[in-house]
């Protein structure tokens, strides 16, 4: 301020006002994916804006990576020159350090750049991709261009480093690769399952007491429709496998994720099936919570059946289908400060596809299934600390459809749920945020409204605050060429509007109620 005191000319006075805005002027070209939030778990810690700042020669660009805090104040501009085909795929913050994943399409490399708390580059980890691996990634991870960035393969490990989970290809085996990148020292390990199957699918479940928990499906062949499901534990220190256990207890479960709740205990949760059931085809019986230790021992088992437990609150068939809602995909589980556990889910169901049926009649091998997926409403389930269902409520939203490929008619619903999330990117759920003492949280999702007064996209929230649940909706359609809604500090969203004619990007925060 004092620098501008006794300003002598108007030009200088004007420069003072310009500095007070977040608006970025003179933006020639920008894509939605140039902006993203930097998160630490569910907390938004900042944002980055990645853009080409100059052309150096035919093959090289100068890039600027602008890193901002969660109030959009610029913390650092990182400038560097690289191939013109470089993109940022992901970023994450682990409480002390920041990572950016760069992809160089020409060089076929993934580069993980780690920045310390002082803003200085600490380490760089490079992963070279084979031609086959690159092709496989293009059909999987790189295929999803998801503005809300719901699909992420880079997970923070508090103060220690980052875990990356990427599809991978080892010659003829289709698998996945887990990498750990330390932020304490230049140290990295990788884990890739290659034995005992021709195809592996792995989900990162979480980290607990120095163990990385993975859910692994093993397929005997690429067309195998009865995969084996198991839980694998890796040492965080070395990457060596500590245990591998079939996901069988009293019932067989298909783990969706891991949460550390009830005073620091780890729980794996997901839908459960009859023992020996085929989790890729059969109907699930309900929802299960397993307490698990660092050696993979199952300490507690709790099963909530669709008809007996959830049926008290919802109109659920014994096959797990909730009336008008369909099946439930659980996005997140969290425990509030008072011990109450909440599961946040979204509905989906298979319905006949007019397009699929018509194309089957007209073209023999159209590739489209006669069934399609309908993504339905949001759901909030409430449990006590012993996982007894205490309440369930469905929150309406408009449904949207996903046409399926041939063969998916007979795939089990939990498996379809993961496909919608990881393959089709079809859920409306965006993210859940909690405050520091977890006395409140907000579940955010997008929707589309065709109303009399408003027709367009909306951004919605279901918020829990000290026992009360409220909902809110922000109309995101504006005069802007395009807008994206990014997560922000708890209780807020960041709306980024790009105005092509005015060549400006206008980011502004709005609060959720």
């Amino acid at each position, binding site marked *: *301020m*004092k*620098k*501008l*005191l*006794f*300003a*002598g*000319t*108007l*030009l*200088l*006075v*004007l420069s003072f006002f310009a500095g007070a805005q977040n608006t970025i002027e003179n933006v020639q070209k920008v894509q939605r994916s140039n902006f993203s939030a*930097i998160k630490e778990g569910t*907390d938004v*810690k*900042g944002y980055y804006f990645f853009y080409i700042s*100059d*052309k*150096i*020669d035919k093959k090289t660009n*100068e890039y600027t990576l602008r*890193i901002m*805090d*969660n*109030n*959009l*104040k*610029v*913390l*650092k*501009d990182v400038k560097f020159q690289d191939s013109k085909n470089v993109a940022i795929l992901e970023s994450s*913050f682990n*409480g*002390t350090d*920041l990572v950016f994943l760069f992809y160089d399409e020409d060089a076929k490399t993934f580069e993980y750049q780690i*920045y*310390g*708390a*002082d*803003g200085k580059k600490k380490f760089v980890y490079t992963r070279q991709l084979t031609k086959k691996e690159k092709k496989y990634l293009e059909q999987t991870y790189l295929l999803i261009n998801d503005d809300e960035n719901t699909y992420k393969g880079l997970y923070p490990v508090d103060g220690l480093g980052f875990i990356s989970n990427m599809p991978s290809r080892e010659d003829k085996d289709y698998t996945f690769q887990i990498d750990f990148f330390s932020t304490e020292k230049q140290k990295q390990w990788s884990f890739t399952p290659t034995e005992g199957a021709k195809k592996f699918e792995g989900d990162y479940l979480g980290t607990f007491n120095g163990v990385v928990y993975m859910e692994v499906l093993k397929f005997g062949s690429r067309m195998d429709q009865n995969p084996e499901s198991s839980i694998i534990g890796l040492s965080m220190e070395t990457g060596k496998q500590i245990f591998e256990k079939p996901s069988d207890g009293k019932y067989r479960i298909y783990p969706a994720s891991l949460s550390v709740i009830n005073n620091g205990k780890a729980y794996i949760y997901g839908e459960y099936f009859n023992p020996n059931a085929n989790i890729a085809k059969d109907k699930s019986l309900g929802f299960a919570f397993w307490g698990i230790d660092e050696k993979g021992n199952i300490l507690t088992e709790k099963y909530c059946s669709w008809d007996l437990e959830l049926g008290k609150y919802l109109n659920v068939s014994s096959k797990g289908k909730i009336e008008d809602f369909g099946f439930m995909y659980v996005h997140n589980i969290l425990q509030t400060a008072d011990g109450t556990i909440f599961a946040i889910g979204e509905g989906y169901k298979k319905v006949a596809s007019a397009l699929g049926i018509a194309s089957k009649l007209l073209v023999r091998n159209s590739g489209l299934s006669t069934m399609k997926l309908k993504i339905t409403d949001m759901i909030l389930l409430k449990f006590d600390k012993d996982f007894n269902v205490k309440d369930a409520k469905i929150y309406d939203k408009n449904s949207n459809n996903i046409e399926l490929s041939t063969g998916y008619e007979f795939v089990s619903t939990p498996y379809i749920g993961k496909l919608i999330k990881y393959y089709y990117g079809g859920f409306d759920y965006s993210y859940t945020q909690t*405050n*520091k*003492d977890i*006395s*409140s949280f907000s579940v955010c999702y997008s929707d589309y409204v065709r109303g009399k007064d408003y027709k367009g996209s909306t951004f919605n929230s279901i*918020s829990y*605050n000290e026992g*009360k649940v*409220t909902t809110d909706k*922000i109309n995101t359609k504006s005069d802007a060429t395009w807008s994206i809604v990014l997560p922000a*500090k708890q*209780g*807020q969203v960041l709306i980024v509007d790009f105005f092509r004619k005015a060549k400006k990007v206008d980011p*502004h*925060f*709005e*609060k959720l*109620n």
Partner: protein
Amino acid sequence: MEPGKKATAFLLLFILTKAAIAQLQPVYSFQKDDTILKRNYYQQSLKKKDSYLSSVTKENTADYKKIYDEQYELIKDLLTTTRSVTSPEAHGYLQSVLKKIVSANNELNGLDVRVVFSRDWWPNAYSIGDGTIMINAGLVIYLNNEAELAFVLCHELSHYYLKHSGKSIKKYIETLHSEEFQKELKRLSKEQYRVNQQLEKLAKSMVFDSRSHSRNNEAEADLQAFNFLKRTGYDCHAIISSLEILDRIDDSSLYRPLDIEQVFSFADYPFKKKWVQKESAIFSQLDENESPLSQKEKDSLKTHPDCSKRILTLNDSVQSIKTQGKRFLVDENLFDKLKKDFFIEMTEQCYRDDNLSRNLYYSLLMVQANENIPVAVYSVARCLNKIYENQKKHSLGEMISGEDRKYSTDYNLLLRTLSRLRLDEITAINYHFCKQYYEQVKGYPGFKDEIKKLQEQKNQ
């Protein structure tokens, strides 16, 4: 009693008894501006614009017009809204101080100037170049005496007297149209690579040049201001003290820092720690000198020389003045009154400008200091209601600032709280706040409307 029932009881009590309450006279009356004077000033300013434009070289008319149009947008905003203060008392006082300066300096006689106070909160004073000189309320509240105000005025008059603004605009346009600059632009338009790097370099050199020119202007204006002031009879030591005030103004406050946990804590509704709880931050150890601009660049881009340098430059001249000047020549009591009034006026202006976080901050500072209670409490209630309304319709983002390292710690804590409050929490705070001061404020005009709004929020 449950908080909800208590709220209803309090609101009912208010409605039932309001008829019986005699209307209290507010302790503060907002200054009534002379709108005819504002209009005349604006007309004079427009005439000046026409005369400027008719005198510029024809080939550059478009460029001059663009700059003057922007300049007049600002002047229009200042002289046609409540931003400028033309109330007889405040404006008359300022004209008296101006008269003291002009009558002592013949060269200023007949100078076409319009010197006006503004209700703007930021501590600044500026000469726009057409003769309009603004002195912000946010600066006046920190001044100790009339002599310091006179020096500020002398400094801005010097800018106008020395034609700094006109010269700067002329220099800028001449540089833009210079053969060398145009040749470089033409060359760059044909380049394919590293264009932005070179453009940035070119722009930087222009900015450095302009800032260095501006620094020279500041030094020249300081010296001229000293010459003007020494003839007035005002105490020239005010030059040093006012520059010292400016040097530490970012860390200054008229009131003790806001204790948000105290002002928003009530017996039935205590302050929640989660509203201000600190979060981990990226680059928490970032060296402030490693911001996108290097230290050297930051220094070079400074608009003004450091105040300490300015003091050093003028100190010998000030000390050489042997006659003891006066701190007040017009009216000490009125100066003190205006300083107090201006704090309330700028608080109100923040509200009118939809700068709700500043409005709330200043209002709460007054409440905390137990000063101007009726108007301050009313201002807080009204602001919280407006925050509620705008948060509900998702338009609050433009009305409250985000935390920033350049702000004071207490203001940042208020901003953090505002960013975390939920609708029902805003209502609860406002309700308990109004209840606490109800007896003192119940007769204040407008307060009952705010209570009604609160009641509507409770019923939702």
